[in-house]
């Protein structure tokens, strides 16, 4: 499979007026609004490393390359792509960039937009377009790479990406701190960490349900990942021990963490100023509905809630039943954004009909996909 194959598929789709459902390995088709497509276009077969010079710490791969493969290839040179989005490492880098999916490592290494150097995509007219480049710094031309990141396939089919890599840390360890029922104590702990020399790779709070899924018992936990040279980790460990009692856990915790919302029927992210929602977040972790799995990244100001499949499906309930009420309330606050990743089909029009309804977004959509054939509807109309 190659860019030409994608070009042909798009031309065919234009001619036959059959919109495409674009995906990586089709692992996550339940995410996003329902797509009005007639044909599937998977990038599964379009995988492989195009260019990797370890000394440059840059990597160019085809979009269908899995994160696991990238981990393996870069690992041979003691390097890594510090990107750990939710889902499994069987997901593709193309889908990760297209959906701007990030995980706990975003705390210290940034979002996909921060790690992306450039990309190639095929637009809705079947033209092969490149944005950015393969070097670590580049301002040539308008930034099509950032535009495509998080566009969910609606502006073009990403076929190749170039990424910035990092050296694997010499030391990389993770610790848990068991949280008590007092939400103020949790908020105080997070504030104390922010004020300390600690600069964790990742810092996540999880509620009891999530802790159970991570095999950490049923109490809320704070999970901290510390990495760097041994001196840096030692200093931070010392600082951590002055703040709370912690216990080391195996690094495999993060693989389980990424799978926290497997079989969830709704996944929602709430984002706000870290301080603004710290108190609420700590409260939610301490006392949350029985079937909601919650993880919070207090430093990014992002809370992620997954409602498990045990809840009544929306076909029998209303939208309000599927989305925790405190979330709907939070969404009304102008300082908070709600980002819906996955919802029961009939709930979408009620809670989030579109995120691209403004005139600039419509204009962008129109020029990149004039025939409306690329994942139509996934971001709304």
């Amino acid at each position: 499979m190659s860019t030409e194959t994608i070009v042909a598929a798009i031309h065919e789709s234009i001619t036959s007026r059959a919109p495409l459902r674009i995906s990586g390995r089709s692992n996550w088709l339940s995410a996003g609004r329902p797509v009005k497509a007639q044909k599937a276009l998977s990038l599964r077969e379009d995988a492989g490393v195009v260019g990797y010079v370890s000394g440059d710490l840059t990597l160019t791969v085809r979009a269908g390359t899995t994160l696991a493969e990238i981990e393996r290839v870069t690992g041979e040179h003691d390097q890594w792509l510090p990107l750990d989005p939710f889902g499994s490492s069987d997901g593709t880098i193309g889908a990760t960039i297209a959906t701007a999916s990030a995980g706990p490592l975003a705390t210290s290494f940034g979002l996909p937009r921060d790690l992306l150097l450039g990309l190639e995509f095929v637009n809705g007219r079947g033209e092969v377009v490149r944005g950015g480049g393969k070097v670590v710094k580049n301002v040539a031309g308008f930034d099509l790479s950032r535009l495509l990141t998080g566009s969910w396939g609606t502006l073009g089919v990403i076929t190749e990406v170039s990424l910035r890599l990092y050296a694997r840390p010499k030391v990389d360890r993770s610790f848990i701190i068991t949280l008590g029922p007092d939400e103020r104590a949790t908020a105080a702990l997070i504030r104390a960490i922010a004020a300390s020399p600690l600069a964790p790779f990742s810092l996540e709070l999880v509620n009891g349900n999530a802790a159970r899924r991570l095999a950490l018992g049923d109490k809320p936990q704070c999970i901290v990942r510390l990495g760097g040279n041994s001196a840096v980790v030692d200093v931070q460990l010392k600082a951590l021990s002055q703040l709370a009692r912690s216990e080391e856990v195996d690094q495999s915790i993060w693989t389980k963490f990424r799978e926290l919302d497997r079989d969830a029927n709704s996944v929602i992210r709430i984002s706000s100023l870290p301080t603004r929602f710290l108190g609420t977040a700590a409260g939610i972790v301490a006392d949350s509905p029985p079937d909601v799995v919650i993880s919070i990244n207090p430093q990014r100001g992002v809370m992620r809630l997954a409602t498990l499949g045990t809840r009544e499906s929306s076909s029998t309930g209303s939208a309000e039943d599927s989305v925790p009420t405190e979330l709907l309330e939070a969404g009304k606050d102008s300082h908070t954004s709600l980002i819906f990743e996955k919802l029961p089909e009939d709930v979408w029009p009620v809670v989030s009909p579109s995120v691209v309804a403004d005139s600039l977004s419509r204009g962008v959509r129109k020029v990149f996909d004039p025939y409306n054939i690329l994942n139509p509807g996934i971001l709304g109309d």
Partner: protein
Amino acid sequence: MPLSSQSSASTVAERLADIVGERHVLSRPSELLVYNSDGLPGYRRQPKLAVFPGTREETIAVVQLLAAEGLSFVPRGAGTGLSGGALADDIVVIGVHRLKQIISLDIENRRATVEPGVVNLRLNKFVAPHGLLYAPDPSSEAACTIGGNVAENAGGPHCLKYGVTLNHVLAITVVLPSGDVVELGSRTGERDGYDLRGAFIGSEGCFGLALDVTVKLTQRPQAVRTVLADFMSIDAAARVTSSIISSGIVPAALEFMDGPTIRVVESSIYAAGYPKDAEAILLIELDGLEAGVVADLEVVRQICLDGGARNVKVARDDAERLKLWQGRKKAFGAMGRLAPHLIVQDAVIPRTRLSEILAAIHAISEKYDVLVCNVFHAGDGNLHPNIAYSADDPDESERVHKAMTEIMRACIDVGGSITGEHGVGLDKMGYMESIFSEPSLNAMCELRGVFDPDHRSNPGKVVPIHSCKEWHSVTSARTREQALAGAHAATGEPPPLAAKPAHPSAQ
């Protein structure tokens, strides 16, 4: 109402004066002279008018007036750009330097909202007492504005570790060329939908004008160490750079200066105590937690010594550290001693190719008998070959431009980019076709068209207009300013540098 006619220009000037006050509109050619170039003095364009709004409301009103009249304009920060990007060819300059309020500072959430005319260093001084910094630090930080930084997606030495402007801007309120106001990104959190904030950053004034910018602030590192390593060969310094990068240590900055640059700086008022007989120096800064910095410092010192460094010195205190940096940051200024004009490139190459490209640059400089000074962000592979010359000497000018074209070609050939932080502007527009295909350039044009359907905001920059398929065919007769192409009475204007000359209407 063509602005090119004197009477309509004075009518527009009067109406602009009604908005911003008479003293904030310039229309006499002598007054406008100072706005006829940016930091790259080889290019000159004379604006028709310059207007300096003092508030957000005035800015919107100015843009709305120009929209109603169908007039083009160029947003301008401090004019320190190095790509000819802020030049206005017989059209209106909107200068933002009076928009200099720091609107809000949120210490705990580490963010600030500022007007576009706030000077980069002023923001840094403002947040420093709170243990914070704004990471992008272009060498022009003492003068350049945040609005200009956003337009250019500015970098700086410390972007090696901390990232460029796009990694530090959360939200931008923009007045579009139509006069409509939109908020891009989110001040308070992350959001979904298209990353229009990302698209706006680095759009070089072609997508509209920022009214305010919300930036992320970074905690000041606990410890900082600055290392000066000097070498008797350029090649050794280049190889050491590659070794440090591939060791996995991410220095806060890793800067390179070659012998000619060292000697220019050392004979200027910015003398930093660099060894004058060295062929190259590396300025390496490490920051972070004290213990980690100390450990990394030892590794870096060893790499330097193993790679042939003659001396590896660590700055003893802040004063010494600042002095070392002063020499680096003012190096471009110091080159004013050599000749009246300066041309500087901004290509980026893969960091493993540094040694061979520096050798190629040396060979090219000998071939054309020009003095190339190399002072650049080695850690990023972001080269800045400078040539000081006299634009009044046609023979020298021609050699300089031929040399620069060959240097650029060499960088492109190893998979590099034509610009890492200075922007395309006018200067590098001719190279765009060397790195982007026709559909890619057309896609950029179309994106611009969404923000600015009539191409009135900074017209004729970044993407050659003949690459804009639809816009060009539909509107070839539309914009009157373009009819003035070729009218610029530039002195010392560099000839087109590209393999393919820019389309005449693009100028």
